[in-house]
C-alpha cells in the first residue's frame, strides 16, 4: 500500500512537471533521496553495498531509520572496533568536529588503535578456545598468536591456514592451542572437524557425523571425509617434576604429527561400517602415507574465486558489526538456510578475496556503509524489520547488541577514568581484570553460536553490576576517584550531570533526565551520596550495557 502510494505520488509529480513545463531536472526528488549517505569514504564498493541494502528496503517496502547521531555512532564504532566506549572528551570533540569526512576518518583511526588488536584477539580467543580455557591449553599462547596476526593485519586465509596446520609447543607456536582446545575429548578428531568447518567454512556438518543432514542433501560420508583430514595429529601433554615439592605437575603441551594413513571408518545408522577418504568439495587427496593432509586441506580451502572461507568470514564479520549476519546463525550456511542478501554476500566475499583477505578493509566497508550508520531506533515505517521476532533482517536500522564481558569491563574502566591513571601496575590491573571476568562468567555458558543480540544476562550478573566490587570502586568518592575529581571541578550541578552522562552513555542527557537527576541531588542531604546514586544508576542502566 505504502509502495503503491509512493508510486502514485511520483506519477503525480511528473504530471505536474509536464503540465507546468518545468524540466525534470528541477523537480525535487523525494526527501529520503536528497543526498546519498556518505561517511566521507570514497570507495565504489561501499556504494555497491548501500545499493544492495537499499534494494532490500524497497523490495520489502520499509523506510530506513534516520542516520544515527554522532554520539550514538561514535559509541557503537568504538565498542565494535576497539571494544570499549569512547571517553567523555572524545564524544565532545567528535560531536563538535565539522569535517564531513569525520566518520570515515574515525574508522581509520580506530583501526590503527592498539585496542583494535586487543579487541579482535579477545573475540577470536573466545571463538577458538572458548571463554573458559580448557585443560592443557595456553590462553596466553593463543592470544600471542592472534595479537601478532591482527597487529600485522595478516591476511585471513593465512591465519586460518596457520591454525589448521599448526604443530609444536603451545607457547612457541600459539596457533596449536586451537587444535589442543578442540581435541579435549579424545574423540577421533570429531570435535575439531565440527569446529573447523563451522568456524572457518561457515557450515555445520556436525549432525552428519551420525546421519545424513535432515534439511539438505549433505550425506553422512561428508563429515567423515572432512574428518579424515584431521586424523594425522595428536596432542601430547608433558609433565615435569616441581623442584619445590618433588611432585609431578603439568608442563607444556604440543601437537605432533602421526603417521596415520588410509581411510577412516564410520558406522551408518543401519550398523553398516563405511569408509571415507579425504575429499574436499569433490577433490580427492591421496590417502597414502607421506601426504600431509592438513596441508592439503589448507591448500584446498582457498581455491576458487569465492571460497567458503571468504564467504564465512564476511558473513561472520557482517554479523559481528550489524548484530545479524546474512544467515542465522552466521556459521550455518548452506542450501537449507538461504542468505538474506545472497548477491551482496557473494560479491563481498569475491571483493574480499581480491583485496587479499584484508580484515581491516572488510571492517572499513561495513563500518562506512549506510546501514551501519543508521540509528538503532526503529519507526512505524520499519518496525517489521525485527529479526529478534524471527523476521529476515533488512538492516534498515541498527540492531542492538549485548556488550561482551570484555567490552563491559573495559567500558567500566573508561567510564570511571581508571585507564588514565597510567599503566604503573599493569600486572595488578590484568589480575583484577581476570578475576572480574571469572566471576562474571559464572553461569555464563552460552555457546558461541548464540545470537549476540538476545539479552542473556543472569541474576548473578545483575547482582554483580549492582553490588560488586568494581561498581563499588567506580562510584567511590575516595581521593583520586572519578567522582571525587568531578565534584572538585568547576561548574554547577547541571554541568556535572552532563559530564556523567557523557562518560557513561556517551551522550548528553535530555530535559527529563536532567530534571530527575537534579531532583535526586536537591532531595538528598549529602550531595556526594546523590552523585553516587546517579552514577550507580547510569552504570546499571540498559543503555550502558548495550551496544546500540
Amino acid at each position, binding site marked *: 500500500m505504502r509502495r503503491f502510494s509512493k508510486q502514485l505520488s511520483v506519477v503525480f509529480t511528473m504530471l505536474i512537471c509536464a503540465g507546468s513545463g518545468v524540466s525534470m531536472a528541477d523537480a525535487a526528488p523525494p526527501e529520503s533521496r536528497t543526498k546519498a549517505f556518505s561517511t566521507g569514504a570514497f570507495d565504489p564498493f561501499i556504494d555497491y553495498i548501500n545499493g544492495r541494502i537499499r534494494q532490500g528496503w524497497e523490495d520489502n517496502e520499509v523506510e530506513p531509520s534516520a542516520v544515527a547521531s554522532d554520539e550514538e555512532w561514535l559509541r557503537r564504532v568504538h565498542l565494535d572496533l576497539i571494544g570499549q566506549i569512547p571517553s567523555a572528551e572524545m564524544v565532545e570533540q567528535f560531536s563538535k568536529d565539522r569535517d564531513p569526512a569525520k566518520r570515515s576518518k574515525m574508522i581509520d583511526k580506530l583501526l590503527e588503535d592498539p585496542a583494535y588488536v586487543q579487541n579482535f584477539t579477545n573475540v577470536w580467543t573466545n571463538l577458538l578456545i572458548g571463554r573458559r580455557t580448557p585443560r592443557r591449553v595456553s590462553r596466553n599462547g593463543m592470544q600471542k598468536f592472534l595479537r601478532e596476526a591482527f597487529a600485522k593485519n595478516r591476511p585471513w586465509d593465512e591465519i586460518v591456514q596457520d591454525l589448521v596446520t599448526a604443530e609444536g609447543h603451545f607457547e612457541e607456536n600459539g596457533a596449536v592451542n586451537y587444535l589442543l582446545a578442540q581435541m579435549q575429548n579424545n574423540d577421533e578428531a570429531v570435535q575439531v572437524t565440527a569446529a573447523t568447518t563451522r568456524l572457518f567454512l561457515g557450515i555445520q556438518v556436525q549432525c552428519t557425523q551420525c546421519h545424513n543432514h535432515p534439511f539438505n542433501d549433505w550425506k553422512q560420508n561428508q563429515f567423515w571425509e572432512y574428518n579424515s583430514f584431521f586424523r594425522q595429529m595428536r596432542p601430547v601433554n608433558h609433565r615435569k617434576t616441581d623442584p619445590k615439592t618433588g611432585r609431578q605437575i603439568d608442563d607444556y603441551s604440543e601437537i605432533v604429527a602421526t603417521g596415520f594413513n588410509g581411510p577412516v571408518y564410520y558406522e551408518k545408522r543401519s550398523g553398516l561400517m563405511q569408509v571415507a577418504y579425504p575429499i574436499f568439495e569433490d577433490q580427492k587427496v591421496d590417502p597414502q602415507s607421506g601426504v600431509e593432509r592438513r596441508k592439503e586441506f589448507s591448500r584446498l580451502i582457498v581455491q576458487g574465486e569465492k571460497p567458503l572461507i571468504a564467504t564465512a568470514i564476511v558473513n561472520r564479520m557482517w554479523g559481528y558489526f550489524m548484530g545479524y549476519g546474512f544467515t542465522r546463525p552466521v556459521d550455518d550456511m548452506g542450501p537449507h538456510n538461504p542468505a538474506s542478501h545472497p548477491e551482496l554476500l557473494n560479491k563481498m566475499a569475491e571483493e574480499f578475496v581480491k583485496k587479499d583477505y584484508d580484515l581491516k578493509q572488510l571492517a572499513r566497508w561495513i563500518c562506512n556503509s549506510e546501514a551501519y550508520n543508521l540509528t538503532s531506533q526503529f519507526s512505524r515505517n520499519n518496525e517489521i524489520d525485527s529479526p529478534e521476532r524471527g523476521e529476515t533482517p533488512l538492516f534498515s536500522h541498527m540492531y542492538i547488541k549485548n556488550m561482551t564481558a570484555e567490552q563491559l569491563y573495559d567500558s567500566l574502566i573508561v567510564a570511571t577514568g581508571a585507564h588514565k591513571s597510567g599503566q604503573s601496575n599493569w600486572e595488578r590491573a590484568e589480575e583484577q581484570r581476570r578475576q572480574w571476568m571469572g566471576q562474571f562468567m*559464572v*553461569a555464563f555458558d552460552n555457546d558461541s553460536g548464540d545470537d549476540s543480540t*538476545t539479552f542473556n544476562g543472569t*541474576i548473578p550478573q545483575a547482582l554483580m553490576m549492582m553490588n560488586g566490587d568494581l561498581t563499588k570502586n567506580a562510584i567511590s568518592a575516595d581521593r583520586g576517584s572519578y567522582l571525587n575529581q568531578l565534584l572538585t571541578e568547576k561548574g554547577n550541578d547541571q554541568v556535572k550531570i552532563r559530564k556523567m552522562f557523557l562518560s557513561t552513555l556517551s551522550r548528553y542527557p535530555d530535559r*527529563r533526565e536532567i530534571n530527575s537527576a537534579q531532583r535526586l541531588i536537591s532531595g538528598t542531604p549529602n550531595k556526594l551520596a546523590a552523585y553516587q546514586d546517579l552514577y550507580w*544508576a547510569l552504570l546499571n542502566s540498559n543503555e550502558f550495557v548495550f551496544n546500540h
Partner: protein
Amino acid sequence: MTILNPYGMTRRHFMQHVAGAATAIPTMHFLSHLEANASQVKKQQKACILIWMAGGPPTIDIWDLKPGSKNGGEFKPISTKGDMQISEHMPKTAQVMDNLSLIRSMSTREADHARGTYYMHSAYVPNPTVVHPTFGSVVSYELGARRKELDIPSFISIGGSRGSAGFLGMSHSPFVVSSDGTIQNAEINMAEQQRLGQRLDMLQVLESGFINSKRGESANSHKDIYKKAVNLMTSKQMEAFKVDQEPAALKDAYGTGNFGQGLLLARRLVEVGVPFVEVSASVGSWDLHQGVFNSLKDQNLPQLDMGIAALVQDLKQRAMLDDVTIVCMGEFGRTPRINQNVGRDHWAASWTAMVGGGGLKNGQAVGKTDADGIGIEGKSYLPGDLWATVAHSLGIPLDIVHTSKRGRPMKLANGGTPIKELIG
C-alpha cells in the same frame, strides 16, 4: 520496575498478582484465603534434591556390597529398615532405608568424569550440535516458571554447579550458592539499603527512556532481570538461605561440615518452594583411585550417613517427604576389582544410584548385579530411566518434548521410562 521500595516488596508483589489474577473476587477476601493456605500449598509443592557425589562413588562399598567375593573389599553389609542391606558404615541411613530405594543396575557406559557428569545430569551423551539442559534446568523450566510466588531462583546449586541450562536458556541455569547460603553480591549494608530505593528510582528513569526509544525487546529483558535481582535481594524468601537460623541440635544432626549444612539449606529452600536443589556431597573426594576403604570409613561415609539420615527424618517430620524426591549419585561407580593401590577405578557398567521420598514405593532394591559386582543380572537402567522416574514423582508429564534452538526435538529425560517397581 514498578516496585521501587525495597521494603515490603514481597507483599506488594504478591498483591499485584492477586489483583491481576482474580478481579472477580473481592480482593481482601481472596487474599486472606490464600494466606491461610499458603503454608499448606508450599508443603505440597513437589521438589527434588540431588545429592551429587562428584568423582564417582564406589557404590559397591556403600549400597551393593559383595561379601565373599574377591571384589568385596573390607566392609560388611548390615540390615536396614528397608528390604535390602547396605554398608556397615551407613548405620543411621540404614534406619531410614524404608523411605529410600536403590537402583542397583545402573549401566551408563560413560566412564570419563566430564562425559559421565554430563550424561548423568542430562540423560544425553555429549554431542557437538547442542548443549542439553541438566535435569535441574528441566525442572526449573517445567515447574519453576509456574511458581509465581517464588522470588528466588527455581534451580539452586549448593557448593558449585555442574551443568548448564543449555537450550532452555539462561534463566534456568543453576543459581550457585555456597553451603552457608552466601549469594555473591546479594548482601548489601544498611547504608546501601537505604539508598537502594533512590537508586532504583533514577534507574527507572533511565531504563524507561531507553525502552521507549523503540530499540527492541532486549531493553525490556534487561529490566526484567534487574527486577528479579532486586526481588531476590529484598525478598522475605531470602531468609531461606540463612541456614544459621536452624536450631543447633538440627544442625548437629545433619553434620556441621559443608555437606551437612548444604543439605539443611536444601531443605529450607524446597520448603519455600524451590523445585530443584543440587547439593555437592563434598565430604572428601569420591574419585578414590587409592586408599578407598580408609577414606570411606574415616571421612566420606560418616558425613554422608549423617546427612542423608537427618534429611529423611527432617522431611518426614515436616510432612514433606512424599513431595520431595531425593536422588544420590555420582557420574559413575567404581571398578569391582580393587587395584594395587587399594583403590577402585572408573566403572560405568554396573553401579547403584539411590533414590527416595517423593511418594515412590520405597524400601526396596531394584535391579541386581552378579556375585562379583561386574555383570548385571536382569534389567539395567539408564540415566533417562532414573530422571523419568523423578519426573513422574514431580508430576511432570513424560510426553513433553523440548525443542533445541535449531529446532531439534528433545524428549524429556531422553525418552526414558519410569522404573516400574518404584512408581507402583
